[in-house]
């Protein structure tokens, strides 16, 4: 039994070290900083100011807008991404010629660098770009100065790009879920006379629930941290600034108020924590094995 314990320790060691050094320490460091006026540019030692940062944040219009934008982003992209990914997974799960090519094609954007994607779409979304051309072909009037330079379209354009980019990845996860459904179930259903659509709702969907919930959790956490695309495409202008962008901007650019930014980071942390915990609880209830 003793050797077993030692084995466990050895096996867990990589995580213990990573957790303590690269997560726990920085987290505590910034937790403490959140209660100080620590600014990177000042030579004066940081002073303990209690809850001042948090109080100020709750009245900071920029911060409140960044929360709003982040929520729009998360609740706009996550459900749509999940549904489209599922549809795509079902479409490429069947047997047909060239299946591999379609899967690869759909998956490819999600493994492309976000910096690259953002650069490409900056051009496509611009005035006279292909997406504006497509919009006017379909009878819409594209924003005069381009999609990214208009408060009413900028955030939604970035969201659309984000959905475009990530559906392939979640499709692949759904696909692995689809593969794990025993084919006997479908055969049994077919024998009982259930059609494709009935099979989907009776067998596929219920059995994919754990996969779908896993996707929801991962994607929610990821989406709450949206940053790079905003950094590259709009620099937070035109009502696109997300919470992480706010943290970046107050913490390590112009203002360099690291104490303030740390407090904002902890609020984001709390929000993500609440959402993920809720999802986990739902998951447990519906799928006790998880």
């Amino acid at each position, binding site marked *: 039994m003793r*050797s077993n314990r030692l*084995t*466990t320790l050895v*096996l867990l060691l*990589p*995580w213990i070290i*990573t*957790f303590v050094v*690269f*997560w726990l*320490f*920085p987290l505590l*460091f*910034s937790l403490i*900083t959140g209660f100080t006026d620590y600014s990177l540019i000042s030579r004066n030692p940081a002073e303990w100011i209690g809850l001042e940062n948090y109080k100020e944040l709750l009245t900071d219009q920029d911060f409140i807008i960044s929360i709003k934008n982040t929520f729009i982003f998360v609740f706009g992209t996550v459900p749509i991404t999940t549904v489209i990914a599922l549809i795509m997974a079902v*479409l*490429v799960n*069947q047997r047909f010629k060239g299946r*591999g*090519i*379609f*899967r*690869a*094609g759909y998956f*490819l954007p999600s*493994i*492309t*660098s*976000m*910096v*690259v994607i953002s*650069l*490409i779409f900056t*051009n*496509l979304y611009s005035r*006279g770009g*292909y997406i504006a051309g497509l919009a006017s072909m379909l009878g819409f009037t594209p924003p005069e100065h381009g999609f990214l330079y208009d408060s009413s379209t900028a955030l939604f354009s970035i969201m659309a790009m984000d959905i*475009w980019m990530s559906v*392939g990845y979640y499709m692949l996860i759904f*696909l*692995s879920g689809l*593969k*794990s459904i025993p084919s006997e179930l479908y055969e049994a259903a077919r024998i009982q006379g259930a059609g494709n659509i009935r099979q989907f709702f009776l067998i596929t969907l219920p059995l994919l629930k754990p996969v779908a919930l*896993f996707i929801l959790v991962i994607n929610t*956490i990821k989406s*709450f*941290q949206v940053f790079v695309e905003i950094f*590259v495409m709009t620099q937070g202008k035109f009502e696109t600034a997300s919470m*992480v962008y706010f*943290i*970046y901007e107050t913490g*390590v650019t112009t203002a360099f108020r*690291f104490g303030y930014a*740390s407090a904002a*980071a*902890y609020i984001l*942390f709390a929000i993500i*924590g609440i959402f*993920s915990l809720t999802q*986990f609880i739902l998951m447990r209830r519906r799928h006790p094995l998880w």
Partner: protein
Amino acid sequence: MVTDRIKKIAHYVILFLILGIMAFPLLWMFRVSLMPTGSLQSFVELWQGSYTLKNYSDLFTTSSMGRYLFNSSFVALIVTTGNVLFCFMVAYALARYRTIANKILFVTVIIVLMIPAHILIVPLYVLMLKAKMYDTYWALILPWLVNPIGIFLLKQYIENVPSTMEDAARVDGAGEYRIIMTIVMPLCKPALAVVAIQIFFTNWNLFLFPFILTSSESLRTLPVALAHFQGQQAIDWQHLMAGSAIAVIPVLIIFIILQKRIVSGITAGAIKQ
């Protein structure tokens, strides 16, 4: 049978439509990267304009594109290897030895999964500085060697692998490490492949931390280098897209090679159940 045919055609139409939407932006990038410098305005030019590799050669001759490529590959490969090994070790321990301490540790994995990594920019910077690892390869590698997502995925997977074979091996007197490496690990190949591909591409595309934790040009990875290009006033879309294409091509190649493995891995996992 005619309806079957129509269904089949409709299926393909939808598939191609989606493929078009998914592929166009990347095709556009490749096309523009091959255009001679100058205006990008006309739609026709995309199909009829001329082709040139000059933008690519410009990047290799006038910037350290080769170095950026090396940095990205080197770092991503090491991080991926580390993750496959370490995440598997940890996941195995968490899935099989269910002590209280392990349960607590799994909770830490979950918590870390929920932490917005971006809040760690400055504490990590300070840490790297104090440890004299700022602006070295260590800063690009060490923090990412054990990714909680990898642990999470692998733990779920291992829990679904029946332990009968391990028990049999244990009865035969095989050592723990041998059992883990020679029996369990091969069984987990599909999941390991998923983890490896995910970690590799995540790391290959990582932007913010390499951007902050290094300063030398010789340590720039491709995304960081691209952000630097973009900051330049005088670079045109053609060169920018050539640089972008260079960041995408290796991913493309590796993906084509690994894709079959992933799909067959998933299939293998399905058959076992």
